[in-house]
Protein backbone atom coordinates (compact mmCIF):
# COMPACT_ATOMS: atom_id res chain seq x y z
CA UNK A 1 0.00 0.00 0.00
CA UNK A 2 1.90 2.91 -1.34
CA UNK A 3 0.49 6.41 -1.39
CA UNK A 4 2.17 7.37 -4.63
CA UNK A 5 2.30 11.04 -3.71
CA UNK A 6 4.51 11.58 -6.71
CA UNK A 7 1.54 12.08 -8.96
CA UNK A 8 -0.76 14.06 -6.73
CA UNK A 9 -0.33 17.75 -6.24
CA UNK A 10 1.69 18.60 -3.17
CA UNK A 11 0.13 19.81 0.05
CA UNK A 12 0.65 23.56 -0.35
CA UNK A 13 -0.60 23.47 -3.95
CA UNK A 14 -3.76 21.65 -2.90
CA UNK A 15 -4.24 24.01 0.02
CA UNK A 16 -4.05 27.00 -2.30
CA UNK A 17 -6.62 25.37 -4.53
CA UNK A 18 -8.91 24.50 -1.64
CA UNK A 19 -8.78 28.11 -0.47
CA UNK A 20 -10.36 29.08 -3.78
CA UNK A 21 -13.49 27.11 -2.89
CA UNK A 22 -15.60 28.87 -0.27
CA UNK A 23 -17.84 25.84 0.29
CA UNK A 24 -15.03 24.00 2.09
CA UNK A 25 -15.59 26.29 5.04
CA UNK A 26 -18.85 24.45 5.45
CA UNK A 27 -19.40 21.98 8.30
CA UNK A 28 -21.62 18.94 7.65
CA UNK A 29 -22.96 17.09 10.69
CA UNK A 30 -20.19 18.59 12.76
CA UNK A 31 -17.55 17.40 10.27
CA UNK A 32 -15.75 19.36 7.62
CA UNK A 33 -17.01 18.53 4.16
CA UNK A 34 -15.39 15.73 2.20
CA UNK A 35 -16.98 16.18 -1.20
CA UNK A 36 -16.71 13.05 -3.33
CA UNK A 37 -19.80 13.67 -5.48
CA UNK A 38 -17.94 15.49 -8.21
CA UNK A 39 -19.33 13.27 -10.93
CA UNK A 40 -22.72 14.79 -10.24
CA UNK A 41 -21.47 18.35 -10.06
CA UNK A 42 -18.26 19.98 -8.85
CA UNK A 43 -17.84 22.88 -6.46
CA UNK A 44 -17.13 26.35 -7.82
CA UNK A 45 -14.04 28.44 -7.15
CA UNK A 46 -14.30 32.10 -6.16
CA UNK A 47 -12.90 33.01 -9.57
CA UNK A 48 -16.04 31.63 -11.20
CA UNK A 49 -18.52 32.99 -8.68
CA UNK A 50 -16.93 36.43 -8.94
CA UNK A 51 -16.98 36.38 -12.73
CA UNK A 52 -20.74 35.85 -12.57
CA UNK A 53 -21.09 38.53 -9.92
CA UNK A 54 -19.04 41.01 -11.93
CA UNK A 55 -21.15 40.36 -14.95
CA UNK A 56 -24.28 41.31 -13.05
CA UNK A 57 -22.59 44.23 -11.30
CA UNK A 58 -21.01 45.71 -14.39
CA UNK A 59 -22.20 44.50 -17.74
CA UNK A 60 -25.59 42.87 -17.60
CA UNK A 61 -27.55 43.48 -20.80
CA UNK A 62 -29.04 41.48 -23.58
CA UNK A 63 -26.59 40.69 -26.33
CA UNK A 64 -26.62 41.01 -30.11
CA UNK A 65 -28.28 43.75 -32.05
CA UNK A 66 -27.92 46.19 -29.16
CA UNK A 67 -26.31 49.52 -29.98
CA UNK A 68 -25.81 50.70 -26.44
CA UNK A 69 -22.60 50.33 -24.46
CA UNK A 70 -23.78 47.71 -21.99
CA UNK A 71 -25.19 45.54 -24.72
CA UNK A 72 -21.91 45.79 -26.60
CA UNK A 73 -19.99 44.84 -23.46
CA UNK A 74 -22.26 41.89 -22.76
CA UNK A 75 -21.98 40.71 -26.35
CA UNK A 76 -18.22 40.93 -26.19
CA UNK A 77 -18.12 38.99 -22.93
CA UNK A 78 -20.36 36.35 -24.42
CA UNK A 79 -18.39 35.95 -27.62
CA UNK A 80 -15.10 36.04 -25.75
CA UNK A 81 -16.43 33.21 -23.62
CA UNK A 82 -17.11 31.28 -26.80
CA UNK A 83 -13.53 31.92 -27.90
CA UNK A 84 -12.20 30.71 -24.56
CA UNK A 85 -14.20 27.49 -24.77
CA UNK A 86 -13.09 26.94 -28.37
CA UNK A 87 -9.43 27.53 -27.54
CA UNK A 88 -9.62 25.17 -24.58
CA UNK A 89 -10.67 22.31 -26.85
CA UNK A 90 -8.27 23.46 -29.56
CA UNK A 91 -11.10 24.37 -31.93
CA UNK A 92 -10.00 26.86 -34.58
CA UNK A 93 -13.40 28.27 -35.48
CA UNK A 94 -15.30 29.37 -32.34
CA UNK A 95 -18.56 29.24 -34.31
CA UNK A 96 -18.32 25.47 -34.00
CA UNK A 97 -18.91 25.91 -30.28
CA UNK A 98 -22.61 26.30 -29.56
CA UNK A 99 -23.70 27.17 -26.04
CA UNK A 100 -26.47 24.94 -24.70
CA UNK A 101 -27.96 24.48 -21.27
CA UNK A 102 -25.89 21.32 -20.75
CA UNK A 103 -24.91 17.89 -21.99
CA UNK A 104 -28.47 16.59 -22.06
CA UNK A 105 -29.66 19.54 -24.11
CA UNK A 106 -26.77 19.08 -26.51
CA UNK A 107 -27.65 15.43 -27.13
CA UNK A 108 -31.30 16.38 -27.67
CA UNK A 109 -30.27 18.94 -30.27
CA UNK A 110 -28.14 16.39 -32.08
CA UNK A 111 -30.57 13.47 -31.91
CA UNK A 112 -33.54 15.70 -32.69
CA UNK A 113 -31.78 17.42 -35.56
CA UNK A 114 -30.40 14.26 -37.14
CA UNK A 115 -33.69 12.43 -36.85
CA UNK A 116 -35.40 15.18 -38.83
CA UNK A 117 -33.56 14.77 -42.05
CA UNK A 118 -30.67 12.38 -41.88
CA UNK A 119 -31.96 9.32 -40.06
CA UNK A 120 -34.45 7.06 -41.83
CA UNK A 121 -36.55 4.13 -40.72
CA UNK A 122 -34.35 1.08 -40.23
CA UNK A 123 -31.20 3.10 -39.53
CA UNK A 124 -29.14 1.99 -36.58
CA UNK A 125 -27.65 3.89 -33.68
CA UNK A 126 -24.88 2.30 -31.66
CA UNK A 127 -24.47 3.09 -27.97
CA UNK A 128 -22.48 1.46 -25.17
CA UNK A 129 -23.90 -0.51 -22.28
CA UNK A 130 -22.69 2.12 -19.85
CA UNK A 131 -24.35 5.17 -21.40
CA UNK A 132 -25.97 7.77 -19.17
CA UNK A 133 -29.75 8.06 -19.60
CA UNK A 134 -29.13 11.42 -21.25
CA UNK A 135 -27.34 9.60 -24.06
CA UNK A 136 -30.00 6.90 -24.33
CA UNK A 137 -33.39 8.52 -23.94
CA UNK A 138 -33.15 11.16 -26.70
CA UNK A 139 -32.14 8.43 -29.18
CA UNK A 140 -34.85 6.15 -27.89
CA UNK A 141 -37.48 8.88 -28.23
CA UNK A 142 -36.65 9.43 -31.89
CA UNK A 143 -36.07 5.73 -32.51
CA UNK A 144 -39.67 5.07 -31.56
CA UNK A 145 -40.97 7.80 -33.80
CA UNK A 146 -38.81 7.20 -36.83
CA UNK A 147 -38.34 3.46 -36.62
CA UNK A 148 -34.64 3.58 -35.78
CA UNK A 149 -32.86 0.73 -34.10
CA UNK A 150 -30.65 1.06 -31.01
CA UNK A 151 -27.72 -1.35 -30.73
CA UNK A 152 -25.62 -1.70 -27.64
CA UNK A 153 -21.90 -2.42 -27.37
CA UNK A 154 -21.57 -4.97 -24.56
CA UNK A 155 -19.01 -4.98 -21.76
CA UNK A 156 -16.38 -7.57 -21.06
CA UNK A 157 -16.36 -9.36 -17.73
CA UNK A 158 -14.16 -6.62 -16.24
CA UNK A 159 -16.83 -4.08 -17.33
CA UNK A 160 -14.57 -2.53 -19.93
CA UNK A 161 -15.98 -2.02 -23.40
CA UNK A 162 -15.90 -5.06 -25.67
CA UNK A 163 -14.32 -3.53 -28.75
CA UNK A 164 -14.24 -6.85 -30.60
CA UNK A 165 -17.97 -7.21 -30.10
CA UNK A 166 -18.44 -3.60 -31.21
CA UNK A 167 -16.84 -4.47 -34.55
CA UNK A 168 -19.58 -6.96 -35.30
CA UNK A 169 -22.38 -4.47 -34.58
CA UNK A 170 -21.67 -2.07 -37.41
CA UNK A 171 -23.58 -2.54 -40.67
CA UNK A 172 -24.42 -0.42 -43.68
CA UNK A 173 -27.52 0.76 -41.84
CA UNK A 174 -25.46 2.10 -38.96
CA UNK A 175 -25.69 5.89 -39.01
CA UNK A 176 -24.68 7.09 -35.57
CA UNK A 177 -22.23 6.04 -32.88
CA UNK A 178 -23.00 7.87 -29.62
CA UNK A 179 -20.69 7.08 -26.72
CA UNK A 180 -19.59 8.40 -23.38
CA UNK A 181 -15.98 9.48 -23.41
CA UNK A 182 -15.77 8.43 -19.76
CA UNK A 183 -18.40 6.30 -18.04
CA UNK A 184 -19.98 8.32 -15.25
CA UNK A 185 -20.60 5.21 -13.16
CA UNK A 186 -17.43 3.21 -13.72
CA UNK A 187 -14.97 5.94 -14.59
CA UNK A 188 -13.69 3.87 -17.51
CA UNK A 189 -12.21 5.80 -20.40
CA UNK A 190 -13.71 4.68 -23.71
CA UNK A 191 -11.25 3.71 -26.41
CA UNK A 192 -12.63 6.22 -28.89
CA UNK A 193 -9.79 5.72 -31.33
CA UNK A 194 -10.61 2.06 -31.80
CA UNK A 195 -14.33 2.77 -32.13
CA UNK A 196 -13.89 5.70 -34.50
CA UNK A 197 -11.73 3.56 -36.76
CA UNK A 198 -14.63 1.20 -37.34
CA UNK A 199 -17.10 4.07 -37.48
CA UNK A 200 -15.09 5.70 -40.23
CA UNK A 201 -15.20 2.58 -42.35
CA UNK A 202 -18.97 2.62 -42.20
CA UNK A 203 -19.21 6.38 -42.61
CA UNK A 204 -20.93 6.72 -39.27
CA UNK A 205 -21.65 10.04 -37.52
CA UNK A 206 -19.82 10.10 -34.19
CA UNK A 207 -21.24 11.72 -31.06
CA UNK A 208 -19.14 11.94 -27.91
CA UNK A 209 -20.74 12.55 -24.53
CA UNK A 210 -17.88 14.37 -22.85
CA UNK A 211 -19.69 15.14 -19.60
CA UNK A 212 -17.19 13.09 -17.59
CA UNK A 213 -14.03 13.52 -19.66
CA UNK A 214 -14.02 17.31 -19.92
CA UNK A 215 -13.59 17.85 -16.15
CA UNK A 216 -10.87 15.27 -15.69
CA UNK A 217 -8.50 15.23 -18.65
CA UNK A 218 -7.18 17.22 -21.60
CA UNK A 219 -9.50 16.93 -24.61
CA UNK A 220 -8.23 17.93 -28.02
CA UNK A 221 -11.23 17.95 -30.33
CA UNK A 222 -9.55 18.18 -33.75
CA UNK A 223 -7.32 15.30 -32.71
CA UNK A 224 -10.24 13.22 -31.45
CA UNK A 225 -12.23 14.32 -34.48
CA UNK A 226 -15.82 13.43 -33.58
CA UNK A 227 -18.73 14.91 -35.49
CA UNK A 228 -20.24 16.14 -32.23
CA UNK A 229 -19.00 16.58 -28.68
CA UNK A 230 -21.06 17.75 -25.71
CA UNK A 231 -20.31 18.64 -22.10
CA UNK A 232 -21.66 20.57 -19.09
CA UNK A 233 -20.01 23.55 -17.39
CA UNK A 234 -21.34 22.59 -13.96
CA UNK A 235 -19.13 19.49 -13.98
CA UNK A 236 -16.13 21.64 -15.00
CA UNK A 237 -16.09 24.10 -12.06
CA UNK A 238 -18.55 26.32 -13.95
CA UNK A 239 -22.11 27.44 -13.28
CA UNK A 240 -25.31 25.48 -13.76
CA UNK A 241 -27.46 25.89 -16.86
CA UNK A 242 -24.71 26.09 -19.48
CA UNK A 243 -22.86 23.62 -21.64
CA UNK A 244 -21.12 23.10 -24.94
CA UNK A 245 -22.27 21.53 -28.16
CA UNK A 246 -19.30 21.26 -30.51
CA UNK A 247 -19.88 20.24 -34.09
CA UNK A 248 -17.76 19.76 -37.19
CA UNK A 249 -17.97 22.76 -39.45
CA UNK A 250 -20.21 21.11 -42.03
CA UNK A 251 -22.90 20.47 -39.43
CA UNK A 252 -23.24 24.21 -38.83
CA UNK A 253 -25.19 24.28 -42.06
CA UNK A 254 -26.27 20.64 -42.36
CA UNK A 255 -27.69 19.84 -38.94
CA UNK A 256 -31.45 20.49 -39.12
CA UNK A 257 -32.81 22.81 -36.45
CA UNK A 258 -34.52 21.10 -33.58
CA UNK A 259 -35.36 24.31 -31.73
CA UNK A 260 -35.73 27.86 -32.96
CA UNK A 261 -36.70 31.36 -31.93
CA UNK A 262 -35.49 34.94 -31.60
CA UNK A 263 -31.84 35.71 -32.30
CA UNK A 264 -31.25 32.93 -34.81
CA UNK A 265 -32.38 34.66 -37.96
CA UNK A 266 -31.60 36.98 -40.84
CA UNK A 267 -35.16 37.68 -41.95
CA UNK A 268 -38.58 36.52 -40.84
CA UNK A 269 -42.01 36.64 -42.37
CA UNK A 270 -44.95 34.54 -41.26
CA UNK A 271 -44.39 32.40 -44.34
CA UNK A 272 -40.64 31.99 -44.37
CA UNK A 273 -37.53 32.45 -42.29
CA UNK A 274 -33.96 32.88 -43.45
CA UNK A 275 -31.65 31.68 -40.71
CA UNK A 276 -28.37 33.21 -39.59
CA UNK A 277 -25.06 31.44 -40.00
CA UNK A 278 -22.79 29.97 -37.36
CA UNK A 279 -23.42 29.14 -33.74
CA UNK A 280 -26.26 31.65 -33.35
CA UNK A 281 -28.43 29.47 -35.57
CA UNK A 282 -28.52 26.97 -32.71
CA UNK A 283 -28.94 29.44 -29.87
CA UNK A 284 -32.55 30.63 -29.96
CA UNK A 285 -33.71 33.07 -27.30
CA UNK A 286 -31.72 35.10 -24.84
CA UNK A 287 -28.67 32.98 -24.02
CA UNK A 288 -27.47 32.21 -20.52
CA UNK A 289 -25.02 35.10 -20.73
CA UNK A 290 -23.81 35.03 -17.12
CA UNK A 291 -23.45 31.28 -17.54
CA UNK A 292 -21.20 31.65 -20.56
CA UNK A 293 -19.07 34.17 -18.65
CA UNK A 294 -18.83 31.78 -15.70
CA UNK A 295 -18.04 28.86 -17.99
CA UNK A 296 -15.12 30.78 -19.49
CA UNK A 297 -13.86 31.67 -16.01
CA UNK A 298 -14.04 27.99 -15.06
CA UNK A 299 -12.02 27.02 -18.09
CA UNK A 300 -9.43 29.65 -17.26
CA UNK A 301 -9.34 28.26 -13.76
CA UNK A 302 -8.76 24.69 -14.91
CA UNK A 303 -6.05 25.84 -17.29
CA UNK A 304 -4.35 27.81 -14.52
CA UNK A 305 -3.85 24.40 -12.88
CA UNK A 306 -3.36 22.54 -16.15
CA UNK A 307 -5.52 19.69 -17.42
CA UNK A 308 -2.69 17.16 -17.37
CA UNK A 309 -1.92 17.93 -13.77
CA UNK A 310 -5.62 17.55 -12.96
CA UNK A 311 -5.71 14.19 -14.71
CA UNK A 312 -2.62 12.94 -12.91
CA UNK A 313 -3.81 14.09 -9.51
CA UNK A 314 -7.27 12.59 -9.83
CA UNK A 315 -6.03 9.35 -11.35
CA UNK A 316 -3.76 8.91 -8.40
CA UNK A 317 -6.71 9.46 -6.06
CA UNK A 318 -8.71 6.85 -7.93
CA UNK A 319 -5.80 4.42 -7.97
CA UNK A 320 -5.21 4.85 -4.26
CA UNK A 321 -8.91 4.58 -3.38
CA UNK A 322 -9.25 1.48 -5.52
CA UNK A 323 -6.23 -0.17 -3.90
CA UNK A 324 -7.60 0.54 -0.44
CA UNK A 325 -11.13 -0.56 -1.31
CA UNK A 326 -9.86 -3.83 -2.73
CA UNK A 327 -8.22 -4.58 0.61
CA UNK A 328 -11.67 -4.76 2.16
CA UNK A 329 -13.22 -8.18 1.62
CA UNK A 330 -16.71 -6.76 2.20
CA UNK A 331 -16.37 -4.42 -0.77
CA UNK A 332 -16.96 -5.09 -4.45
CA UNK A 333 -15.46 -2.60 -6.93
CA UNK A 334 -16.94 -2.26 -10.42
CA UNK A 335 -14.85 -1.59 -13.51
CA UNK A 336 -11.40 -2.31 -12.10
CA UNK A 337 -9.41 -1.10 -15.08
CA UNK A 338 -6.41 1.18 -14.62
CA UNK A 339 -7.68 3.31 -17.49
CA UNK A 340 -9.98 5.44 -15.41
CA UNK A 341 -10.80 9.09 -14.91
CA UNK A 342 -11.92 10.52 -11.62
CA UNK A 343 -14.61 8.03 -10.66
CA UNK A 344 -14.85 4.79 -8.66
CA UNK A 345 -17.98 2.73 -8.05
CA UNK A 346 -18.42 0.02 -5.43
CA UNK A 347 -20.81 -1.72 -3.09
CA UNK A 348 -20.58 -3.11 0.40
CA UNK A 349 -21.71 -6.69 -0.06
CA UNK A 350 -25.13 -7.30 1.39
CA UNK A 351 -25.69 -3.63 2.15
CA UNK A 352 -27.91 -1.25 0.22
CA UNK A 353 -25.97 1.68 -1.30
CA UNK A 354 -28.53 4.00 0.25
CA UNK A 355 -27.47 2.85 3.72
CA UNK A 356 -23.79 3.27 2.95
CA UNK A 357 -24.35 6.75 1.51
CA UNK A 358 -26.54 7.85 4.39
CA UNK A 359 -24.01 6.79 6.99
CA UNK A 360 -21.01 8.24 5.12
CA UNK A 361 -22.91 11.53 5.00
CA UNK A 362 -23.08 11.42 8.79
CA UNK A 363 -19.28 11.56 8.74
CA UNK A 364 -19.39 14.56 6.41
CA UNK A 365 -18.53 12.49 3.33
CA UNK A 366 -20.69 13.21 0.26
CA UNK A 367 -20.86 10.29 -2.15
CA UNK A 368 -23.55 9.50 -4.69
CA UNK A 369 -25.58 6.34 -4.40
CA UNK A 370 -28.11 4.76 -6.70
CA UNK A 371 -28.23 4.04 -10.40
CA UNK A 372 -26.35 7.19 -11.49
CA UNK A 373 -28.74 7.53 -14.43
CA UNK A 374 -27.33 4.33 -15.86
CA UNK A 375 -30.08 1.81 -15.16
CA UNK A 376 -29.18 -0.46 -18.08
CA UNK A 377 -25.69 -0.80 -16.62
CA UNK A 378 -27.16 -1.58 -13.19
CA UNK A 379 -29.25 -4.32 -14.76
CA UNK A 380 -26.10 -5.68 -16.35
CA UNK A 381 -24.19 -5.57 -13.07
CA UNK A 382 -27.19 -7.14 -11.38
CA UNK A 383 -27.42 -4.47 -8.69
CA UNK A 384 -29.99 -1.89 -7.57
CA UNK A 385 -27.30 0.72 -7.43
CA UNK A 386 -23.74 1.43 -6.39
CA UNK A 387 -21.88 3.85 -4.17
CA UNK A 388 -19.84 6.21 -6.29
CA UNK A 389 -16.90 8.30 -5.12
CA UNK A 390 -15.76 10.79 -7.71
CA UNK A 391 -12.89 13.18 -7.38
CA UNK A 392 -11.94 16.71 -8.31
CA UNK A 393 -8.77 18.73 -8.17
CA UNK A 394 -9.39 19.84 -4.57
CA UNK A 395 -9.57 16.31 -3.16
CA UNK A 396 -6.63 14.83 -1.27
CA UNK A 397 -5.15 11.48 -0.37
CA UNK A 398 -5.92 12.35 3.25
CA UNK A 399 -9.59 12.63 2.40
CA UNK A 400 -9.44 9.23 0.73
CA UNK A 401 -7.77 7.88 3.85
CA UNK A 402 -10.51 9.35 6.05
CA UNK A 403 -13.16 7.93 3.73
CA UNK A 404 -11.70 4.41 3.91
CA UNK A 405 -11.48 4.62 7.67
CA UNK A 406 -15.12 5.70 7.97
CA UNK A 407 -16.26 3.19 5.39
CA UNK A 408 -14.86 0.47 7.64
CA UNK A 409 -16.99 1.85 10.46
CA UNK A 410 -20.04 1.88 8.16
CA UNK A 411 -19.42 -1.74 7.22
CA UNK A 412 -19.51 -2.67 10.90
CA UNK A 413 -22.69 -0.67 11.43
CA UNK A 414 -24.66 -2.22 8.58
CA UNK A 415 -23.41 -5.80 8.99
Amino acid at each position, binding site marked *: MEKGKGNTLDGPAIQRIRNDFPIFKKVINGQSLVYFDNGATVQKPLQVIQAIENYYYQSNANIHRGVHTLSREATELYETARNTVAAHFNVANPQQCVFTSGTTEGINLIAGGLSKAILRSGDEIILTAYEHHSNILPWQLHAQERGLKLKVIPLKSDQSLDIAAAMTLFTDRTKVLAVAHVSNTLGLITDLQALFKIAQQYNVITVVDGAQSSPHMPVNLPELDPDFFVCSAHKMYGPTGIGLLYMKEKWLTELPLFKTGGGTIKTVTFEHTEYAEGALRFEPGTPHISGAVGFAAAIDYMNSIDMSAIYKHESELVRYAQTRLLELPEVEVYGQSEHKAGVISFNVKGA*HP*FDVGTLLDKYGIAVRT*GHHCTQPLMQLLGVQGTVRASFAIYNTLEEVEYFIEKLKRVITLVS
Partner: protein
Amino acid sequence: MQIREIEEEIISEFELFGDDWEQKYEHLIDLGKSLPLIEPGYKTDVNLIKGCQSRVWMHSDFKEGKMIFTADSDAIITKGMVALLVRVLSHQEPVAIVNARLEFIDQIGLKEHLSPTRANGLVSMINRMKQEALQHLSK
Protein backbone atom coordinates in the same frame (compact mmCIF):
# COMPACT_ATOMS: atom_id res chain seq x y z
CA MET B 1 -51.25 2.26 23.80
CA GLN B 2 -52.18 5.53 22.17
CA ILE B 3 -50.04 6.91 19.37
CA ARG B 4 -48.73 9.72 21.54
CA GLU B 5 -47.74 7.27 24.26
CA ILE B 6 -45.76 5.11 21.88
CA GLU B 7 -44.11 8.20 20.52
CA GLU B 8 -43.07 9.22 24.05
CA GLU B 9 -41.67 5.76 24.59
CA ILE B 10 -39.57 5.98 21.46
CA ILE B 11 -38.39 9.45 22.38
CA SER B 12 -37.14 8.22 25.76
CA GLU B 13 -35.45 5.30 24.09
CA PHE B 14 -33.52 7.58 21.77
CA GLU B 15 -32.76 10.10 24.51
CA LEU B 16 -30.36 7.58 25.97
CA PHE B 17 -28.02 8.15 23.05
CA GLY B 18 -27.84 11.90 23.53
CA ASP B 19 -25.95 13.45 20.62
CA ASP B 20 -24.24 10.23 19.61
CA TRP B 21 -25.62 9.65 16.16
CA GLU B 22 -23.64 6.44 15.69
CA GLN B 23 -25.45 4.82 18.61
CA LYS B 24 -28.73 6.24 17.36
CA TYR B 25 -28.23 4.71 13.95
CA GLU B 26 -27.06 1.43 15.44
CA HIS B 27 -30.34 1.31 17.31
CA LEU B 28 -32.30 2.25 14.21
CA ILE B 29 -30.58 -0.50 12.26
CA ASP B 30 -31.31 -2.99 15.08
CA LEU B 31 -34.96 -1.96 14.95
CA GLY B 32 -34.89 -2.57 11.23
CA LYS B 33 -33.39 -6.00 11.69
CA SER B 34 -36.02 -6.94 14.25
CA LEU B 35 -38.97 -5.77 12.16
CA PRO B 36 -41.27 -8.78 11.76
CA LEU B 37 -41.07 -9.90 8.19
CA ILE B 38 -43.91 -9.02 5.92
CA GLU B 39 -45.56 -12.12 4.43
CA PRO B 40 -43.76 -12.76 1.12
CA GLY B 41 -47.13 -12.84 -0.61
CA TYR B 42 -47.62 -9.19 0.27
CA LYS B 43 -44.34 -8.05 -1.32
CA THR B 44 -46.20 -7.29 -4.53
CA ASP B 45 -45.92 -4.46 -6.99
CA VAL B 46 -49.18 -3.01 -5.71
CA ASN B 47 -47.75 -2.82 -2.23
CA LEU B 48 -44.45 -1.36 -3.42
CA ILE B 49 -43.79 2.25 -2.64
CA LYS B 50 -40.98 3.41 -4.84
CA GLY B 51 -38.51 5.89 -3.56
CA CYS B 52 -35.80 6.86 -5.97
CA GLN B 53 -33.39 4.58 -4.17
CA SER B 54 -34.69 2.34 -1.43
CA ARG B 55 -37.97 0.54 -1.81
CA VAL B 56 -40.69 0.04 0.76
CA TRP B 57 -43.45 -2.56 0.75
CA MET B 58 -46.46 -1.97 2.90
CA HIS B 59 -49.58 -4.03 3.55
CA SER B 60 -52.54 -3.12 5.71
CA ASP B 61 -55.40 -5.06 7.27
CA PHE B 62 -58.42 -3.72 9.09
CA LYS B 63 -59.46 -5.76 12.11
CA GLU B 64 -61.82 -4.90 14.94
CA GLY B 65 -61.79 -1.23 14.12
CA LYS B 66 -58.01 -1.03 13.94
CA MET B 67 -55.45 -0.87 11.18
CA ILE B 68 -52.74 -3.53 11.14
CA PHE B 69 -49.66 -2.63 9.13
CA THR B 70 -46.81 -4.86 8.05
CA ALA B 71 -43.94 -3.54 6.00
CA ASP B 72 -40.43 -4.06 4.71
CA SER B 73 -37.64 -2.22 2.91
CA ASP B 74 -34.53 -3.23 1.03
CA ALA B 75 -32.40 -0.63 2.82
CA ILE B 76 -31.73 -1.27 6.46
CA ILE B 77 -31.92 2.36 7.61
CA THR B 78 -35.19 2.81 5.80
CA LYS B 79 -36.33 -0.44 7.37
CA GLY B 80 -35.52 0.98 10.80
CA MET B 81 -37.64 4.00 10.06
CA VAL B 82 -40.38 1.73 8.74
CA ALA B 83 -40.21 -0.26 11.97
CA LEU B 84 -40.74 2.92 13.99
CA LEU B 85 -43.73 3.93 11.89
CA VAL B 86 -45.32 0.50 12.11
CA ARG B 87 -44.76 0.47 15.85
CA VAL B 88 -46.51 3.83 16.21
CA LEU B 89 -49.34 3.41 13.71
CA SER B 90 -50.20 -0.28 13.64
CA HIS B 91 -53.08 -1.42 15.84
CA GLN B 92 -54.48 2.10 15.96
CA GLU B 93 -57.86 3.41 14.94
CA PRO B 94 -58.13 5.00 11.52
CA VAL B 95 -59.06 8.41 12.90
CA ALA B 96 -55.97 8.47 15.11
CA ILE B 97 -53.75 7.48 12.20
CA VAL B 98 -55.17 10.14 9.92
CA ASN B 99 -54.60 12.79 12.57
CA ALA B 100 -51.15 11.61 13.67
CA ARG B 101 -48.54 14.32 13.25
CA LEU B 102 -45.64 12.02 13.97
CA GLU B 103 -43.59 14.71 15.58
CA PHE B 104 -41.46 12.15 17.38
CA ILE B 105 -39.41 11.74 14.22
CA ASP B 106 -38.27 15.31 14.54
CA GLN B 107 -37.75 14.92 18.28
CA ILE B 108 -35.46 11.90 17.95
CA GLY B 109 -33.42 13.77 15.36
CA LEU B 110 -34.33 11.77 12.28
CA LYS B 111 -36.38 14.44 10.56
CA GLU B 112 -34.07 14.49 7.56
CA HIS B 113 -35.44 11.10 6.54
CA LEU B 114 -38.85 12.61 6.07
CA SER B 115 -37.95 15.54 3.87
CA PRO B 116 -40.18 15.39 0.80
CA THR B 117 -37.11 15.38 -1.40
CA ARG B 118 -35.71 12.33 0.32
CA ALA B 119 -34.93 9.44 -1.93
CA ASN B 120 -36.23 6.72 0.36
CA GLY B 121 -39.97 6.63 -0.15
CA LEU B 122 -40.83 7.17 3.51
CA VAL B 123 -43.01 10.19 2.92
CA SER B 124 -44.96 8.25 0.34
CA MET B 125 -45.25 5.41 2.84
CA ILE B 126 -46.77 7.64 5.50
CA ASN B 127 -49.14 9.08 2.94
CA ARG B 128 -50.14 5.58 1.91
CA MET B 129 -50.70 4.53 5.53
CA LYS B 130 -52.92 7.54 6.09
CA GLN B 131 -54.84 6.99 2.89
CA GLU B 132 -55.57 3.40 3.74
CA ALA B 133 -56.72 4.46 7.18
CA LEU B 134 -58.90 7.11 5.57
CA GLN B 135 -60.71 4.44 3.56
CA HIS B 136 -61.82 2.81 6.77
CA LEU B 137 -62.81 6.04 8.43
CA SER B 138 -66.28 6.24 6.95
CA LYS B 139 -67.07 2.57 7.50
